[in-house]
């Protein structure tokens, strides 16, 4: 095992241990509640980054799959019965996989477009799913919303199972990103992000690689939506297919550093608690959004590439300065 691999695994293990311990140490319901939201956004941002950060295809439709996950779980509860307590969590990977597979044909068509067009095309997915939620009343109960059974967790630690479920999805997402970034699939995705036409000319199977990354993004997002629905026990179209949720996740990714492993998580750890704080301070007037955008103005001005890449290049520069006997990089073309 290389040193970088060992350090990466150690970092992951430390994060997992700290995150698992958190709700047992700080067990006040309101703190765990913020924890659930933070992990939810971290998982969504990580999922978004897995596709958009690595391939360069910016999707604005992620909330559609979050909503599909939420509604699918709700509908499955109504019609199939998947038990109570922890049991629904175990059904989530399957629910997510079903949605991911169903989304592949849509993605295959959407991926024929690029850049802004792709962003807009995927944004319409979001509104299509929302309209379906409004109008397929026999399944979704339309705008009156869908009720899920309230799980029988003890009141004192009611939030903890949801916290752990969100954490499990986040860790799965991080593990996937880590695997992908060090693999040939990751190299393919980065090549696509850098220059897709060139990648095609080299024989890189761009469509397959993009579809794999897309399905993983959908799988994770749908599972997050499912946990969220079970947590709230009541979902309706505006809240479960909410552009603001997705914009939050995207902005967190930009804040932390897109294309990195930890960037989205770091972005969520910074922003969600700040957002919750502003909501309590400024009330439900949505004035918190103003504070939100102020944070982003600062980030865009000071750290345009995000926290992690900015930190990394600062560290690199420091090292460069220390290395006195460094061989100069020869930029001349020819070696005499």
């Amino acid at each position, binding site marked *: 095992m290389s040193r970088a691999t060992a350090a990466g695994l150690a970092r992951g293990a430390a994060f997992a241990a700290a995150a698992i311990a958190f709700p047992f140490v700080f067990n006040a319901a309101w703190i765990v509640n913020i924890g659930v939201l933070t992990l939810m956004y971290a998982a969504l941002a990580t999922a978004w980054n897995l596709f958009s950060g690595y391939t360069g295809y910016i999707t604005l439709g992620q909330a559609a799959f979050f909503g599909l996950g939420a509604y699918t779980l709700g509908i499955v509860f109504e019609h199939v019965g998947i038990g109570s307590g922890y049991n629904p969590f175990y059904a989530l990977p399957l629910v997510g996989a079903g949605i991911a597979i169903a989304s592949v044909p849509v993605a295959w068509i959407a991926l024929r477009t690029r850049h802004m067009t792709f962003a807009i095309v995927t944004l319409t997915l979001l509104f299509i799913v929302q309209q379906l939620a409004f109008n397929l009343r026999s399944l979704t109960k339309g705008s009156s919303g869908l009720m899920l059974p309230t799980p029988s967790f003890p009141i004192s630690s009611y939030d903890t199972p949801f916290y752990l479920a969100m954490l499990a999805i986040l860790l799965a997402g991080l593990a996937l990103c880590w695997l992908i970034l060090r693999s040939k699939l990751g190299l393919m995705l*980065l090549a696509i992000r850098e220059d897709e036409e060139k990648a095609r*000319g080299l024989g890189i199977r761009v469509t397959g690689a993009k579809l794999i990354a897309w399905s993983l993004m959908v799988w994770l997002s749908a599972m997050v939506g499912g946990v969220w629905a079970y947590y709230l026990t009541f979902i309706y179209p505006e809240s479960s297919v909410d552009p603001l949720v997705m914009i939050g996740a995207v902005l967190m990714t930009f804040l932390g550093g897109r294309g990195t492993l930890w960037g989205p998580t770091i972005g969520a750890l910074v922003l969600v608690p700040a957002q919750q704080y502003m909501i309590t301070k400024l009330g439900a007037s949505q004035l918190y959004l103003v504070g939100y955008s102020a944070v982003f103005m600062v980030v865009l001005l000071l750290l345009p590439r995000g926290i992690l890449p900015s930190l990394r290049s600062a560290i690199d520069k420091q090292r460069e300065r220390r290395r006195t006997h460094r061989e100069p990089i020869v930029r001349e073309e020819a070696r005499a």
Partner: protein
Amino acid sequence: MSAALLEIEGLTKRFGGVTAVSDCSFAVPEGTVTALVGPNGSGKTTAFNLITGYMRADAGTIRFAGASVRRPNPVSLARHGLTRTFQQARVFPELTLVQNMVAALQQPWRAALQRAVRKHERTRALELLEEFGLARLAGERAGNLSYGQKKLLEFAAVLMADPRLVLLDEPTAGVNPLLVEQIEQRIRDLNARGLTFLLVEHNMNLVMRLSDPVVVLDHGTKLAEGKPDEVRNDPRVLDAYLGG
């Protein structure tokens, strides 16, 4: 002359009212360095784009390695051994030179979760980079290279997958004379080892030294085809391209 590795028959492409390539036919015999020359706008790059599947032809047939290519597609053509470079050198700027090289290895899906750069792949990449005089920059970001070095890297990278035919689009454009010599030498060496080339090139001295046969295009149609000497003395070619 040996059998044709690539055969183009009646290739046509129109852009609105402009016919960029018009009923163009030529062949690239196996084991040759075939040159495609002609004045600017004569359809050379368009022909490249049609052959490699970056554009869909309006008419015409393409045969590669004896099989007809019905719907040319860059990915599958590259995986069958027909690969290309671009007029403006294209590399993956954020990746290192070694990553650029290894990304060009056409991997099967079952290798997708293997380490991005495995030991033997790094060795192979370094060998090729050494041949192209880039080995000492192996860990650099490709974006840090000079333009000429990017051209070399692009050329080296397409060799990673052991192609049968390499289409070089102006391999020496914007490159200093020393590098031109190096690129020429690489083409000669690789050709001696059996690799076939089709190159678009404006440096006629280089073409005359390196290529046989030479195909001359003008207004999207083939004007002449033959040995460099014959082509050079063809009055139509003199008139259209080389000047009297």
